């Protein structure tokens, strides 16, 4: 039998106003096992804590029940208090008589009765508490960053600067991500490549950073501090160590008709290619879908012209396995497909483009060399219509996305402003639902577009775009003017909503990290833990967590890096001792627990047990990795045999609480 002390807190008048604290401490004094019961004004104050410690020593208490606020508030406080007095911290139970009682009851009588019941339940639980000791697990001092866009690069640079090795896994042949395709950045209008490429070079030169480009994460095992990751290095048919990036092969390759994804298909590249001049690593890659040599075995031009002898048509995908202490997801975003928005005639006219395509048409390294020309006939456009919220803020989510893509208002203002700056003879219309420009110097930027550059901002949506005689007939509503507008435009630019990259969903499954309905990674806490995934050791950087502009992405990337560094500096991690464990004698190996475990903490082993008459029985049994288990208890409910139990919240303890409440 435990010797239990009960400490009822008034919380000033927070509890005492609607709960008769004296009656509660008197009633609980009569419970079995209770040797001391009292009440006090502020149990969390130094005086209150001193009293608890004094009574632990005086009565030799083996268990403590504090009737006070939510355990989210002061459970840690009271555990530490008791630990200092020599009691195991897990012998403390909190009865929440504030949030779950005094704050929701007006009548003192019912409040008091409920407080007594809650106290009784906590006492019943403490009776079955056992001292728990937290274990430790080692930390591999290396981080993995998945995605080599600006988010991944910044995270990797910050981690590397702290002295830890980092691997960047990027699925494309080069790092840099979406930012490489952008022309200018808002609100300062500096060139994206000019600020990004130095960072790419930094990453390439940093001794602590290892770039695995043209690679994908294949499998993830393990847990915080001890991940084991299988990475597929896709065959690029070029020896990275030999290729000098001279680009001769990309000029001589006879296969010229490959849509160039870097310019979003607005022009063509060769079957062997370097995505753009400042690519990192600057290594050629053969596209196996188009290479004549790989498809028919006849050609070999690139191999002949390569002076370095880097071409290797026999190259195979390679699987490498590495250990990491922390993983950062930085998988980024893509504009959504315009298939479902045919009212804007995207599929019918090449002069209807998305904003990202527009970036390429404005960019000096783009298909038009930086001169804005209509893709259809290469003429100079005079009237441009920008449509905002294409697929963003859609109700129902059938057609588009329910969320605001956040960056479109600003880049559309940027596009409109740049067009007017470069080509003052143009008429530029922007159709919007709302203009959302919070952010440092953002609203000033938008106002400049309207006031200084004379961009026509019209509140209302475009209903229909019809290509006719080389023009685009735009029908739109002007909500403030209360009229229908008909504009003969030369180009229409659609601010397509952004969505998480398709690789995010399978990656989340591998990482057992949670996602929301839109496939954005979920944070551990939307306000207080914004860069951590609920899965320990997995961190979030950039637009994979939600739509973000570049400054926000970089800020979040740095924040994720600081969390990773905080993890990697530790030699050992202290585990939460309130974890599940399986009783091997009862486990039948059915996998129910493994299926429901959201953290991948449960594995199975075949284990030999002694059977009757000196026989050996081999059985499949569950094993819980205490470093991964977060103590959610899903497995204890799923286990049909009752073999799974949660330390500190055992089935017996919970049943005892229920029984005490129902008494």
């Amino acid at each position, binding site marked *: 039998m435990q010797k239990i002390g009960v400490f009822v807190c008034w919380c000033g008048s927070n509890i005492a106003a609607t709960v008769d604290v004296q009656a509660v401490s008197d009633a609980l004094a009569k419970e079995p096992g209770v040797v001391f019961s009292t009440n006090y004004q502020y149990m969390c104050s130094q005086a209150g804590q001193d009293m608890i410690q004094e009574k632990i020593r005086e009565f030799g208490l083996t268990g403590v029940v504090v009737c006070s606020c939510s355990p989210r508030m002061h459970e840690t406080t009271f555990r530490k208090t008791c630990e200092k007095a020599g009691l195991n911290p897990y012998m403390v139970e909190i009865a929440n008589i504030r949030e779950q009682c005094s704050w929701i009851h007006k009548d003192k009588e019912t409040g008091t009765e409920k407080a007594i019941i809650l106290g009784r339940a906590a006492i019943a639980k403490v009776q079955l508490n056992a001292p728990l000791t937290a274990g430790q697990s080692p930390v591999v001092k290396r981080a993995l960053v998945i995605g080599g866009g600006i988010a991944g690069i910044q995270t990797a640079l910050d981690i590397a600067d702290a002295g830890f090795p980092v691997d960047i896994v990027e699925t494309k042949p080069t790092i840099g991500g979406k930012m490489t395709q952008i022309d200018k950045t808002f609100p300062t209008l500096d060139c994206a490549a000019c600020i990004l490429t130095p960072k790419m070079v930094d990453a390439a030169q940093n001794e602590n950073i290892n770039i695995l480009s043209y690679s994908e994460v294949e499998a993830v095992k393990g847990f915080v501090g001890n991940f084991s990751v299988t990475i597929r290095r896709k065959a690029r048919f070029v020896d990275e160590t030999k290729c000098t990036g001279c680009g001769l092969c990309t000029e001589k390759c006879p296969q010229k008709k490959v849509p160039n994804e870097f310019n979003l298909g607005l022009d063509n590249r060769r079957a062997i290619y370097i995505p753009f001049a400042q690519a990192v690593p600057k290594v050629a890659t053969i596209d196996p879908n188009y290479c004549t040599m790989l498809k028919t075995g006849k050609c070999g031009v690139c191999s002949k012209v390569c002076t370095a002898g880097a071409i290797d048509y026999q190259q195979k995908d390679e699987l490498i396995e590495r250990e990491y202490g922390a993983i950062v997801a930085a998988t980024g975003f893509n504009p959504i497909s315009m298939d479902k928005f045919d009212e804007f005639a995207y599929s019918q006219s090449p002069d209807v483009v998305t904003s990202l395509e527009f970036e390429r048409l404005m960019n000096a390294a783009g298909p038009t060399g930086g001169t804005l020309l209509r893709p259809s006939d290469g003429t100079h456009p005079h009237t441009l219509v920008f449509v905002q919220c294409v697929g963003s803020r859609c109700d129902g989510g059938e057609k588009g996305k329910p969320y605001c893509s956040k960056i479109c208002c600003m880049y559309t203002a940027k596009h409109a402003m740049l067009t007017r700056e470069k080509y003052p003879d143009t008429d530029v219309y922007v159709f919007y639902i709302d203009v959302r420009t919070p952010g440092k110097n953002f609203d000033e930027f938008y106002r400049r577009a309207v006031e200084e550059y004379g961009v026509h901002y019209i509140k209302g949506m475009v209903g229909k775009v019809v290509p006719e005689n080389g023009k685009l007939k735009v029908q739109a509503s002007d909500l403030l003017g209360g009229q229908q507008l008909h504009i003969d435009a030369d180009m229409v630019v659609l601010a397509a909503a952004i969505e998480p990259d398709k690789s995010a969903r399978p990656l989340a499954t591998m990482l057992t990290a949670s996602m929301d309905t839109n496939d954005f990674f979920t944070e551990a806490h939307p306000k207080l833990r914004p860069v951590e995934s609920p899965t320990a050791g997995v961190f979030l950087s950039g637009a994979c967590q939600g739509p973000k502009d570049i400054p926000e992405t970089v800020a979040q990337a740095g924040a994720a890096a600081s969390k990773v560094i905080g993890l990697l500096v530790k030699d050992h991690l202290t585990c939460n001792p309130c974890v599940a464990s399986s009783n091997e004698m009862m486990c039948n*190996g*059915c*996998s129910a627990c493994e299926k*429901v475990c959201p953290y991948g903490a449960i594995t199975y082993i075949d284990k030999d047990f002694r059977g009757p008459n000196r026989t050996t029985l081999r059985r499949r049994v569950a094993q819980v990795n205490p470093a991964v288990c977060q103590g959610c208890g899903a497995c204890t409910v799923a286990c*049909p*045999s*009752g073999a799974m139990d949660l330390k500190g919240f055992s089935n017996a303890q919970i049943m005892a609480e229920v029984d005490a409440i129902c008494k």
Partner: protein
Amino acid sequence: MQERVKAKAIELLESGVCDRVLGWKAGEFFYDVTPAVFTSREEIEKEFVFGPFCGANMSKYLIAESRKEGKKVGAFLKPCDTYSFQQLQKEHRIWRENVYAVGVQCEGMCDIEALKAAGIKGILGAEGSGDTLTVHTLYGDKSVERKAVLAERCACCKSKKLLGCDEIVGEQGEELESARFEQVAKLEAMTPDERFAFWRGELSRCIRCNACRNVCPACSCEKCVFDNPNSGIENKAASNSFEENLFHIIRAFHVAGRCTDCGECSRVCPQHIPLHLLNRKFIKDINELYGEYQAGADMDTRPPLMNFQMDDPEPSVVHERGSDQ
């Protein structure tokens, strides 16, 4: 069919694929056919039967048999047995590599009580395939329509499909449109008091012989919670006069989502309690709340109660629905 099955059993032994075969042999009476392990041609020729009373589901025996040393165990499985067979593999209970599974097409198993109820006296035996059974009686042979004397579970057979077998004797069948939820719907239509009275009437006959638990393929725990004093369930089932009620209700909860509706629980109940109705209620609810799901129908889907999907109904929906009835 009996001869083809016997021949296959002998072939499995003599070809060296298996060193033992799991099949049926006649018990004390011709209709209480029991599962048995055969190890020789002689035993098979003498004792092996396959006929209208071979209701026993062989899959559960494979948990222990597949773990034994030696060659593979041969097993004859009827369509509904193969659902349990697959479900037990999904739960990693059967070691598949040690089993040679032979699917046997089934025409529906008969219920001796139905034969008696049909007014046939002095029954000595029954056999035959197809729509008509020949019943041997003290007063000579009589023929009876199979449909009239089928066991309830076979009268509303859910599937004749043989799943996951190494080989098949007879024709492969199809999933059937079954009226198996009609009785459950009748129970749902009752008022709570009527339903309580119905189940009190049925469950109070329980003698806690544990036959239902022992035969159930889903009841394959190493140690049953009812045998475990630490589970906290033993004394729940024993409290007040509700002992038997809670035993069966707890058991139904334990097998929910894993029960393939093989109907063995009701077949073996010496008190003729329609225990399968509890399980069918769960299956019907799962189908309605989470979409059609047949336990054991495949090897890879995740059972709805062990899975989470964003469009799962909220607990409040389940709760409201429960309070409607």
